[in-house]
């Protein structure tokens, strides 16, 4: 087991080097330039050249890349050029990561348990009205795009609706970030969680249906066990095994999802920073974001595999 984990971890640096090379090359050779974006229309070629020189952007690709890597290894991930000139990328990420983390935590906190619970009930009451209802919810949750949902919900929830003299709302404050317990979090977390809810309901339902029709459940029932014992102790445990994978990837994927949501609601998290960085060609922020995302994916993947060995004794790694 230990050898397996080490082997897997050794692949991480190789992967990071490859990803960083590609990302860096795209940044340098792609169209657009951070110093130009910084100057906007008020440009003068000699100033752009001078500032590029100060940042070292005039160096050849290899030198720039090696500089970046050697600085990164010493914990310096460069500085922002356009959006927060002079602030170090690590400071920016450190300030924004907790926000994204909390937002995603709230999104998961409501959607994950609810999704699993709905999935179980949906599987147990298969073909009932409840099941149809839940499946409709799943379709809705998977197919509604954030871009479409956001303005509708914001309009419905955050506006004062006037009907002549009678008016209701606004129900929820929106925009900005006041911590994970402030009501501002509700709309973005709801939108973020909707997809998770759908995926988990669907997967849990499928897994439960499969397990419930298997032989050992029939045996358990034949032994005369109470139904809640059958479901809770025997069926659920086995049904949860495939969910481990999805949980891992959902957590990793949520960070990508909060890209759009953060942008819409003006939440100062990693997602909105990355969005700004992409539009203004901030190489260093893009690099840091990509590398962190890659690392998180690799680690979560590994974690899932390890967890498998614990939840499913049949799995062994050499």
């Amino acid at each position, binding site marked *: 087991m230990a050898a397996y984990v080490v082997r897997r971890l050794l692949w991480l640096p190789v992967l990071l080097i490859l990803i960083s090379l590609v990302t860096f090359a795209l940044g340098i050779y792609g169209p657009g330039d951070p110093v130009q974006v910084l100057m906007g229309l008020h440009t003068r070629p000699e*100033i752009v050249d001078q500032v590029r020189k100060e*940042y070292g952007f005039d160096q050849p690709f290899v030198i720039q890349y090696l500089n970046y890597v050697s600085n990164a290894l010493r914990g310096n991930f460069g500085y922002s050029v356009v959006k927060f000139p002079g602030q170090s990328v690590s400071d920016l990420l450190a300030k924004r990561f907790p926000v994204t983390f909390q937002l995603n935590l709230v999104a998961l906190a409501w959607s994950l348990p609810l999704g699993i619970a709905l999935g179980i009930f949906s599987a147990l009451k298969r073909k009932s009205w409840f099941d149809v209802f839940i499946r409709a919810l799943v379709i809705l949750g998977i197919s509604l795009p954030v871009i479409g949902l956001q303005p509708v919900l914001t309009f*419905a929830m955050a*506006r004062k609706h006037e009907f002549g003299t009678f008016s209701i709302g606004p129900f929820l404050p929106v925009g900005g970030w006041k911590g994970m317990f402030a009501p501002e979090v509700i709309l973005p977390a709801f939108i973020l969680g909707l997809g998770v809810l759908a995926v988990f309901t669907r997967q849990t339902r499928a897994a439960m249906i499969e397990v419930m029709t298997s032989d050992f459940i029939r045996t358990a029932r034949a032994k005369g066990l109470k139904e809640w014992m059958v479901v809770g102790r025997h069926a659920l445990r086995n049904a949860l095994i495939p969910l481990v994978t999805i949980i891992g990837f959902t957590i990793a994927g949520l960070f990508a999802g909060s890209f759009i949501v953060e942008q819409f609601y*003006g939440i100062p998290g990693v997602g909105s920073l990355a969005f700004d960085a992409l539009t203004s060609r901030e190489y260093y922020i893009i690099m840091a974001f990509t590398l962190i995302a890659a690392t998180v994916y690799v680690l979560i993947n590994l974690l899932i595999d390890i967890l498998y060995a614990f939840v499913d004794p049949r799995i062994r790694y050499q």
Partner: protein
Amino acid sequence: MSENRGLIAIVIVLLVALVGLVCVGIGAVVYCPQPGSMCQGLFGAPSNVSQNNPSQQPTAVQNQNQGQNQNPTQNQNPSQNQNSTAPTGNTLRLPGGSGLGGDPPTLDPALTSDVESATYIVEIYSGLVSFNKDLKIVPDLAEKWDVSNDGKTYTFTIRQNAKFHDGRPVTAQDVQYSLERAADPKTRSTVSPLYLGDIVGFNEKYTGQAKTISGIKVIDNYTIQIDIKQPISYFLAELAHPTAYVVDKFNVESGEQPWYLKPNGTGPYKLVQWDQGQLIVLEKNNDYYGDVKPSVDRVEMILGGGSGMTRYENGDLDAVRVSIADIERVSDTSNPLNKELDVEPQLSTGFLVFNTRKAPFDDPKVRMAFAMSIDTAKIAKVVYKDMVAPATGILPDKFPGFNPNLQGIKYDPEGAKKLLAESKYASGLPDIVWSTVGGGGAAGSDTQAIAEMLKENLGANISIEQTDWATYLSQINGTDVDFQMFDIGWSADYVDPHNFIGLLFRGGSPSNWSGYDNPEVNKLIDEASVEPSLEKRIEYYQQAEEKILQDAPVLPLTYGRDYWLTKPYVKGAFYPPLVIERLKYITLEK
């Protein structure tokens, strides 16, 4: 089950209703402790604000303590949060920055290249001179100045009563330090060469060839002398830009990363709180040296984006910038909000640029024919819902040197056809690509409308190509612009016609996008830029403007307008077209 599509459709409808209801429920429960919401009506008594505070009307000092002592993320109980309730005390609540919200990229004056940052910087810091409400240059940190006879040497006398927020008096050495710092290549300012590049020795320092700027001399503690290369008449306007503002050396070199999170400025307001993505709080500087003293004790700038209009109507904001979606509603005179509406001209013009280096726009007749086939008045009315005004010249209306006699390029499709027939492309226009900033999807309705007009009136075959902003900039910023035809908006950096006519149309200027190069116009611009008499200069610029319009390297499309709503108890608020100090003019009457 899945065969029964009708059933599923009904279920989906039910589901949407359920989701809505759940939201309303959660919303009501969570939002309820906050007074002023609908809960007061629905759930009886509002939660008691005074429970946690002996005084219902917190004074500014209490607010200040609250701001300094409480970490907002720990302040979870909305009932303690008086900031979002009805206005109390002497606190002004504004949308962040220029009204769009969001964190300012920087509060370092030397680096300020954007409106969002500048909005705070002009309140927190100050320069030797600044613009007053009427956009005239007035003394600021300098109480007076002398200009030598050749117009190349400025001697400033600094006020003896000017102090930094920490109480240290401002001296000529501080001014020198700030200007030297802005020029230092290590500061990596992209704006300082634009505004300070006329100072003797600036470029040598900026490019690392010299250690100091030779043109800046400290005469004594309160006198500083600045030499400029040419007797340019707009030098004082350049000095009014944040890049030239005074910073405190000890503050900058404090080692705090970055230092400007705790700026020690000299302006009428000081920064007391900056919660990124949430709130910036400014408090009045009681020691402010200026003649107009600030009145409002505390200004809260809300950084969270989103529905400012909603918050304004709910009474959580004292002013808001109206977006195009709400323009029609607030412009309706029967709407009570209409009385609170201010429409202010911006110093900006939108242009359609014809690249004179590319076919078919190398022929002035084709350019003129294109310009004559576009009905700018109709675009402003129909597409922009009158949110902008049709442009009649290059200089925006309300800009010094604006020529009210200009009629713009007249919409005349018949004349345009005739001109095209006389041009060297009479036998057939090549296909034309219009480059515009966009993220895919449909092009803006203005772009589509204009392309349609050109097609209808001239039979031009126009395809619209969208690029993102960074790519677009890398294309147009250069001497060899590849785009054939593109649209662009230009806003003034300082109030001088040179900023439009000189920068955009002088042959060889880096912002001369159309590649227009007319010796006559160049001569007029060169003469104007060194002419000391303002009236004469304006005359030169107006002549140049007229000639440019005849050659039509661009078609001026629109003049920008800003729409603001302000609560009636906010007195003295105004929305200048340039970023200038304005908070100190505001009083609250409640």
